[in-house]
């Protein structure tokens, strides 16, 4: 049983390419990524540092620094508008209102000199026809819903007065205050402790079940993906290498990188005497290897991998992989 509908696609990213034109050369941070987000599902973008997962998220709302960054190709279609090419004015109506983003590092995502209340209310007043009092009332209710005790007091706090877990909740509250249709969360569980991580995951789970939010959840942790995701896009070297339902990614990974990643993960639910490791390291985005970006580390590399970019192959309707072995 799947809780999301198969056909109701709310956001479609097609062959997205975001390059950064720096003095030292072109950094192809995102180099051809495609996926769709369906109504009410949690889609995970998973990969190691430098794989382009965060830049993909930022590209959806065009929030990277430009220059040097630029979307050089592809489309991001939301409500039949291409967010990758629409005028800024139009995009501004989508940011925060339709699609909200929770940035990595709760600490630096909040303004240290404004109170929590100011920061939440500011956004509501931009997008919604509310008075300050009405906005305040709504903020308090939302904070309560996110499990923050004494919400009225928290509105008057400055970020430094809150703990890491609380800041994460405040950020989620802030992203929800304009009732967005899509929530993008960039590594929300990374810098927090295990017991708090469980609380944060629980909160996102509630968002999905109670509010039927469509989530894009970015993480490097496959175990987190297994807990929260419906479908996952595995990224490597600026490309989507495998897209499938999470259960299939975990039980039957097709791409050698996904398989390797799973084998090198110490996990409490499995017994293991020795971890398998992937030799080498992730590529430098300014010096991507030719052909398949994973070929220098791949145990199943064949000649064609060195020169030709692998096409997207379909293993089943729901399971796609970018690898010559399946082409």
């Amino acid at each position, binding site marked *: 049983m799947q809780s999301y509908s198969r056909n109701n696609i709310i956001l479609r990213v097609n062959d997205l390419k975001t390059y950064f034109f720096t003095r030292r050369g072109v950094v192809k941070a995102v180099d051809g990524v495609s996926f769709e987000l369906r109504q009410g599902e949690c889609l995970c973008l998973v990969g*190691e*540092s430098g794989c382009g997962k965060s830049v993909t998220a930022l590209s959806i709302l065009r929030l990277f620094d430009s220059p040097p960054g630029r979307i050089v190709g592809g489309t991001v279609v939301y409500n039949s508008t291409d967010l990758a090419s629409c005028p800024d004015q139009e995009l501004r109506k989508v940011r925060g209102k339709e699609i909200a983003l929770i940035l990595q590092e709760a600490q630096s995502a909040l303004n240290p000199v404004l109170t929590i209340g100011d920061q939440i209310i500011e956004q509501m007043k931009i997008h919604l026809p509310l008075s300050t009092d009405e906005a305040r009332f709504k903020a308090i209710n939302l904070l309560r819903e996110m499990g923050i005790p004494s919400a009225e007091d928290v509105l008057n706090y400055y970020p430094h007065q809150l*703990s890491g*877990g*609380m800041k994460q909740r405040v950020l989620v509250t802030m992203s929800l205050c304009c009732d967005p249709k899509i929530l993008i969360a960039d590594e929300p569980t990374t810098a927090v*402790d*295990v*017991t*708090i*991580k*469980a*609380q944060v*995951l*629980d909160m996102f789970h509630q968002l999905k079940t109670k509010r039927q939010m469509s989530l894009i959840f970015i993480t*490097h*942790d*496959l*175990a*987190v993906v*297994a*807990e929260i995701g419906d479908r996952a896009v595995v990224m490597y070297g600026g490309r989507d290498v495998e897209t499938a339902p999470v259960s299939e990614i*975990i039980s039957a990974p097709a791409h050698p990188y996904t398989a*390797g*990643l*799973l084998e*090198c*993960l*110490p*996990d*409490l*639910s*499995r017994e*293991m005497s*020795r*971890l*398998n*490791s*992937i*030799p080498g*390291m*992730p590529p430098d985005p300014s010096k991507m290897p030719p052909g398949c970006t994973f070929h220098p580390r791949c145990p199943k590399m064949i000649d064609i991998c060195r020169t030709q970019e692998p096409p997207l192959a379909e293993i089943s309707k729901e399971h796609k992989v970018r690898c010559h072995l399946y082409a």
Partner: protein
Amino acid sequence: MPDKDKPLLEVKELKKYYPLTAGITSRHIGDIKAVDGVSFSVGEGESLGLVGESGCGKSTLGKTILRLEEPTGGKIIYKGTDITTLDKKALRQLRKEIQIIFQDPEASLDPRMTIGQSICEPLVIHNIGDDREREEMLVWLLEKVGLEPNQASLYPHELSGGQKQRVGIARALALNPKLIVADEPVSALDVSIQAQILNLMLDIQNQMGLSYLFIAHDLSVIKYVARRIAVMYLGKIVELAEREALFGNPLHPYTEALLSSVPTLIPGARKRVLLIGEVPSPLNPPPGCRFHPRCPHVMPACRQEEPALIEVSQGHSVACHLHRS
């Protein structure tokens, strides 16, 4: 042959308080009790894992054992000698035997020294070998940690995170130590690199018969590297057991909650105990059992009396009123 029964290191009732002062007279208004009466031992060739959330005092404990922080109370006994009161000169000798690997390989290497210089620095300080012997040693060490000899002339910024951590390990191994305190050595690394470093550390242990005190917040990592595991909460050890016992039969409610909170590839394998609230401040820890405000099994006794760490079965100790014999 390493003998696992004879403790290499014994820590008894170790305390580290940081005084808190106020006003221009620096009035003493309290202590942050980072480590508050911790006892354990590490056998020769053994790896003891120390796990806990941020602020539980695990890193302070690691540093105090090396006397990088001066203990406030208690004893550290290394090979039968009390090292708590050693003077500077004797301490320097001790550090040949006990080394540390830090969490952040970025910050623990001098950016102006080549990695060859960094790795050889301990040899220079301790006056070991001449230039040629050090050169040989360097090549051997680089090989041991999986780096190329020609990388010795590189600077830290030219290396990746994983390579820098390899340098950190090589530097710790330079003096042929008996005990290595590894303070979150893989938490800053990507998963595929983390596996490489963990395997490297285990291989080195097998080859050289080292003991590890392995500090980490990640239970999955600890489970992989440590035979015996101590769980810390707010400056205290709440449970200490062999790996199988701790993961198979956790006794302390905190350990149970911690284990159930870890996301796993097969969700639902363990019933999740969601803890409410957050870790209290070590400046003003709750009276009685420090875990009682968050404990799902709290009893009246927990609010008043601090439970002692008691061995409830062979090698399995727990500090909890639920398990008083």
